[in-house]
């Protein structure tokens, strides 16, 4: 027996790891894996690195956009080019400061309208796997963030907190295939579930064929899920397809918040929605 194990130690250890993965998966799916230390340690190590890296990514994105805007002026003449470049850097800095100021002011105004406890947080990383739509926030349980809290911006719904460590929180975005948010069509009050889909982007599910839904209809949170405050914008209907068979219509949705373009969010505890850790 020992000789067999020694001879096949790599495959045996792989099988052990596979079984351990299945055990973790099963425990996580049943909600029994609440405090796993390895994840907390890993996120503790990753947090400062992610903050620095995401800061650089934001800076590069801003610089790229700014470059596009000012590209026309570059061809004017050689003498002015250096001057423009200097101004560009300065302008970029000021624009960024103004944009941050504007964004934070909007968040502050919006924060006053939300019920219950509200925490402001920044996004420090996105999903590392193509199969999920998630992001990491720079605030965690030490700041009052709890699993199940809603994540929003003044523009609308972003997602829901699905895991927390003391200093970070993982957010499942509205566009993830495993998310689901109860919504109302503003015009007709028809109800459905907004969710992501690997195949078709964001969709509105479980809307009866008889319901009147049109392109351009606004979808608002119903507030009945106990997670998202009522009346928050979730998205706009961009395509409605009634198939020949089936109980429901197929509705494609443009999310209200483009998650790739946001930097700061509000984490909101709706009444009875968040789990006490």
């Amino acid at each position, binding site marked *: 027996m020992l000789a067999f194990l020694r001879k096949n*130690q*790599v*495959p045996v*250890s*792989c*099988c052990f*790891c*596979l079984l*351990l*993965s*299945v*055990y*973790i*998966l099963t425990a*996580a*799916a049943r909600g029994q*894996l609440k405090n*796993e230390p*390895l*994840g907390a340690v*890993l*996120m503790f*190590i*990753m947090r400062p*690195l*992610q903050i620095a*890296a*995401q800061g*650089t*990514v934001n800076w*590069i*994105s801003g610089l790229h956009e700014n470059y596009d805007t000012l590209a026309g002026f570059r061809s004017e003449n050689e003498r002015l080019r250096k001057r423009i470049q200097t101004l560009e850097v300065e302008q970029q800095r000021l624009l960024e400061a103004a944009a941050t100021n504007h964004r934070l002011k909007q968040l502050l105004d919006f924060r006053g309208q939300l019920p219950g406890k509200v925490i402001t947080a920044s996004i420090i*990383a*996105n*999903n*590392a*796997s*193509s*199969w*999920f*739509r*998630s992001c*990491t926030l720079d605030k965690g349980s030490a700041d009052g963030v709890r699993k199940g809290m809603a994540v929003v911006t003044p523009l609308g719904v972003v997602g829901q907190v*699905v*895991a927390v460590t003391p200093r970070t929180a*993982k957010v*499942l975005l509205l566009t*993830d*295939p*495993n998310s689901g948010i109860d919504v109302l069509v503003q015009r007709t009050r028809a109800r459905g579930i907004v*969710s992501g*889909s*690997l*195949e*078709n982007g964001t*969709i509105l*599910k479980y809307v009866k064929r008889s319901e009147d839904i049109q392109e351009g209809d606004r979808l608002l949170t119903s507030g009945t899920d106990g997670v998202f405050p009522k009346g928050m914008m979730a998205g706009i209907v961009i395509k409605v397809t009634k198939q020949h068979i089936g109980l429901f219509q197929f509705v494609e949705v443009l999310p209200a918040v483009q998650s*790739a373009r946001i930097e700061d969010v509000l984490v909101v505890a709706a009444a009875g929605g968040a789990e006490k850790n």
Partner: protein
Amino acid sequence: MRLFLLYFLVGIFLILLQSTFLHLLPFGPVVPDLVLVLCVYLGLHHPTVGAAVGSFVLGYSIDVVSSRLLGLNAFAMTLVFLSVYFSSRTIWLHHPVVSSLIVLFAAVVKGAALVLLWVVFLSTEGFWLGAAKYILMEALLAAALAPLVFSLLRRGENYMKKLGALV
């Protein structure tokens, strides 16, 4: 021990890249899976118990950073390591094209593992076409990047060995 530390740091760095900088690339929602390439490299060049556990830890780290359920990528990466471990016993390779093909195969194994677990544990509505697209795109991207990543890893490893010889 030095090599283990090197690969752990490389793994953390790659996850950091995947969760930040690689989102700047124009591939839409698909992020190049460099950790997969690292696991294939470990399976080919370091078929040890430590590397097997390392692949599991790397997959688990991706789960911690971005998966809906913990254990999905841990399972997939371990399976990738195991399949590469078995194939490396029959295939002798050093050519970049062959390494790309092995990574392509490994990406398909990973995709199949994720699909299997997804079907068991998560929602499959509107899933199949998207999954096929993601498996294909991820596999092609990973295969395209494999020679570069392999070359960098080999250089890093040689550098560490030289450093070890000097100290």
